[in-house]
């Protein structure tokens, strides 16, 4: 697999993203700059030059289809890449520290204390035979050095703050005795137990009921307001991201195709892929309608494509889309699009039709 060497110069030469808190890789609590990750021991490049940043107290949503690289990006930021995945190029900076060169001891300091994580299936991250209270108290005792009594006290406070009723009772329950929504709250309590600056939530609400999902989204909003917690929120459903996030980063086949303020992305999506995602998202109307699909298949991981990776499925693909690398262009304050036709009339016609 030859890495597309032609691709990097345009990314490096990208103008420094103008003014405002753009997606550019400078500053911020967490910033990824031109990140390249290959899978299967270098056999295929799955992440091709991702740059994004999360400011303190900001909720950033990553959306895209399965296999677009959202989860891999999160795992790289958390330092828990699966076997065979290698960061080929680029940097990950968290609170001024370069994470790509961090030692194991260094990670132990970052995990939990500065960065927390919750995933899709809470039950598989908890020990089924230990009470959830002890699993949380253990983290507090190891990370913060609290006494048994203090850890218990703090655990109950944390359970209360994530909205579990009867926290003293929940403390003594094992995971099997709790519902999915309660387990996800326990996971969030563990993730925020050492007061991290960043919470990575990878499909954290996907497996939950809609009523519980709405409550967990509400909880994340409240934690941000109360603690200034920044959240990197991954979901395949643009509707969920639109509910919660300040900024949205749209992934397609290992690249960021569009990023910007959530309201702007929802109202004025410029990239054809984002527009397609919006058409298939839960629009929140309850009328009978034609359910839309995105035609075609995403490219295989590592597939070499000259030009736009979405061109094969794009209704507006033109010659220019396939002739060379596509550089991101600015489409508004902090709004960037990787599409050569983003400013053309068809995009406006598409918007008018919505």
């Amino acid at each position, binding site marked *: 697999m030859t890495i597309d060497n032609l691709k990097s110069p345009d990314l490096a030469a990208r103008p420094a993203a103008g003014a405002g808190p753009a997606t550019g890789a400078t500053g911020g609590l967490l910033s990824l700059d031109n990140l390249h990750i290959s899978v299967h021991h270098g056999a295929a490049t799955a992440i091709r030059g991702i740059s994004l940043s999360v400011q303190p107290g900001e909720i950033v949503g990553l959306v895209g*289809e*399965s296999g677009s690289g959202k989860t891999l990006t999160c795992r790289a930021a958390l330092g828990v890449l699966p076997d065979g995945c290698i960061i080929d190029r680029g940097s990950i900076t968290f609170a001024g520290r370069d994470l790509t060169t961090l030692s194991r001891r260094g990670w132990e300091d970052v995990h939990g204390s500065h960065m927390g994580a919750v995933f899709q299936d809470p039950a598989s991250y908890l020990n089924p035979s230990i009470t959830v209270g002890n699993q949380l108290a253990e983290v507090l005792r190891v990370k913060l050095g609290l006494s048994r009594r203090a850890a218990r006290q703090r655990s109950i406070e944390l359970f209360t703050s994530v*909205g*579990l*009723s*009867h926290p003293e009772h929940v403390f003594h329950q094992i995971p099997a*005795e*709790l*519902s*999915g*929504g*309660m387990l996800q*709250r326990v996971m969030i309590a563990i993730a925020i137990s050492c007061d991290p600056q960043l919470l990575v939530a990878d499909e954290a609400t996907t*497996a939950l*009921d*809609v*009523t*519980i*999902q*709405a*409550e967990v*989204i*509400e*909880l994340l909003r*409240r934690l941000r307001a109360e603690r200034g917690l920044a959240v990197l929120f991954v979901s*395949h*459903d*643009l*509707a*969920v991201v*639109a*509910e919660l996030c300040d900024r949205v980063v749209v992934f397609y086949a290992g690249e960021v195709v569009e990023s910007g303020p959530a309201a702007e992305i*929802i109202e004025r999506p410029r990239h054809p892929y984002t527009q*397609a*995602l*919006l058409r*298939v*998202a*839960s*629009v*929140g*109307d*309850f*009328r*009978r*309608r*034609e*359910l*839309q*699909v*995105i035609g075609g298949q995403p490219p295989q991981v590592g597939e070499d494509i000259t030009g736009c990776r979405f061109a094969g499925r794009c209704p507006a693909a033109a010659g220019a889309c396939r002739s060379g690398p596509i550089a991101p262009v600015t489409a508004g304050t902090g709004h960037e699009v990787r599409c050569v036709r983003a400013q053309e009339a068809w995009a406006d016609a598409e918007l008018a039709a919505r």
Partner: protein
Amino acid sequence: MSAPATQTAPLLAVESLDVVLGRGWRANQVLSGVDLAIEPGEIVGLVGETGSGKTTLARTVTGLVSPAGGRVVFEGTTISALRRGARRAERRRGHLQLVFQDPLRSLDPDMIVADIVAQGVRLQGETDREAIRQRVVGALGQVGLDASVLPRTPGQISGGQRQRVSIARALATEPRLLICDEPVSALDASNRNYILRLLDQLRTSLGLSIVIISHDLSSLAGIADRVAVLYRGRIVEDGPVDQVFAAPRHPYTALLMASAPSVRHDRELSPQQVTRTVAEAGALPEDLLAGLGGPDACVLASRCAFAAAACTVQPPLVAAGDHRRVACHRHSEWLTLARSRAAGGQLTTEGQPR
């Protein structure tokens, strides 16, 4: 059904079904007095949260769980009363098929697609290899898959294809009724819409009746004819999908709709407007609060913002307008009360403990 849509006998009739799982002190009534009829060629959505009994209803209808009371009539036969040989013969006919939620878990990972789809056909008594192959290829064709997937195992195809294989497995026996248990909750938005559209097409081309169990109301609105809302083992509301979603008559339906994620923020009610806060619960008289939490109370009484003295007794499911039924003492009053409640405020608890 209280108001039959047609004079013909329904394809499936579930009559005052009670299901108790577990024995002795573990006994747990999962379904209480469920009445539901499925007409030929109709798509019925079954919605409700985890633990509401949706899956148990599907398992009882297909004979995987025995009811404690009531009966299941399919094509004029009381299938819930069949025993031994008669039940096995009914199953082998394959006229009633169940599609499971997670194909990765429900399909044998070591079997190839050709054998997975052929199994039901062989059970029907077909022995001719060529005939079996034709049925298999035909069933795969109906879900938009070609013969290239035949030699693959479930692990070697994509998630959307896997779900299509499990639908093809069900279709191969030429069923009259397909019960799909959360067929799309593991898929991304585009694949979800693809599967739902496929089910809609199959209903038309094969004259199938389909029951879709889902908690995603917005996509159900796209294809279902009728919807039944289950809460803690009881149907709390049912009726034509457009009418129910245009004007829900049960507060729980309103809560589900308010919780559904949406790209636009233009919902009429917020979840907070239909659920009781901790403060409100504290303000209620103690004996009323105990009554609302009691075993005879309305299933929603412990969460409902509008629960009153009458709600300490479970309301029956009664006709409310054309082909609609609702089980709520205050179905004519709660909406006015909801509109007068503040839209903001905090969600209180994680719902009811399990």
